[in-house]
């Protein structure tokens, strides 16, 4: 219940702040990430909890983050983000790259 509340809360805010121990909740719906801009602390690992609310699978894909993670439809995935140097790290849903785009900003 708490996590659902948190998810709703964070999904409503366009830019979510990465916390040290709480995962950053991201939803994929209609092949769009929300939030699509994810801020994390630089030089600290973080975690994205991705909910795929679509019917079909998609692949969270980012060569700069070095992550390829298939998430089936209506499933969730814990995606570990390594400690990042300050900068922008784009990611996409590879199966629907036209709309599913986002960026992790480490600062």
């Amino acid at each position, binding site marked *: 219940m708490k996590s659902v509340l948190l998810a709703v809360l964070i999904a409503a805010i366009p830019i979510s702040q990465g916390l040290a121990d709480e995962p950053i909740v991201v939803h994929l719906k209609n092949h769009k990430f929300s939030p699509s801009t994810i801020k994390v602390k630089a030089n600290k690992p973080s975690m994205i909890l991705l909910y795929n609310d679509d*019917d*079909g*699978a998609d692949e969270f894909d980012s*060569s*700069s983050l070095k992550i390829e993670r*298939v998430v089936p439809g209506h*499933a969730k995935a814990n995606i*570990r983000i390594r400690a990042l140097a300050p900068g922008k790290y784009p990611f996409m849903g590879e199966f629907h790259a036209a709309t599913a785009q986002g960026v992790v900003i480490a600062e």
Partner: protein
Amino acid sequence: MIAALIIVFREVIEAGLIVGIVLAATTGVPGRERAVAMGILAGVLGACLVAAFAGELAGLFQGSGQEIFNATILLLAVAMLTWHNVWMASHGREMARELKAAGHQVKTGERTLAALSIVVGVAVLREGSEVVLFLYGIAAQGGTSAAGMIAGGGLGLAAGALVSALMYAGLLKVPAGKLFQVTSGLITLLAAGMAAQAVIFLQNAGWLEFFTSTVWDTSWLLPDDGQGSLGLFGKMLHTLVGYTAAPNGAQLIAYGFTIVLILVLMRMVNAPATTPRGRHA
């Protein structure tokens, strides 16, 4: 339709290049078509299974099941490629000499064919499960766009197979005497690239979190993810020799270690060239 074509093309090319190398490496070995076909068939079946149970798989190992699975099958492929190269180093010379004497080769070839069949199976399994999930998602949506997407997928498959066939044809242009050196070199780099990729999966699972900082970044020059004008070239280099635009320390260590390990093992079994060796290298 174009999106489907591109995605399927990308995945097929990755598996296809590996099949091409395996076919070139087994030139003249009887039964290789069957071994490769078995590998592809097992890979496709495995891909459907992985796709069907993707959710369950991901749930294992505290949510890192997918990463651990990918790392495991990659390392299995690295082991098989290493074994093949070492085996060939101890038997390659006599094989090259007796290229036409098929009788001797049937025995030698069969051993390493099984290993290479597994490599093909792993390559098809990895890339195939993504294609299956992608196409399944489209098919589930139904409607007229699904037909176009399936057609796109078919074209992507054909285009990927064509590029792989061209690379295979190119490899066959290498003189027979040199082919063994070229393919064993390619297989060494292929194994090293897979080992580096396995390290990334282990790191994403929260294991092996050492040397994670990026050592250099040439993604502005040649990205490795298939994006941009040179993207396809970078992606092919990524598959073939493990080119990574922004490698971290652990990846480089795994890459270098694998190359050194294979070369040392090959040299060890090859040193007394005339001494017969045991069946297991």
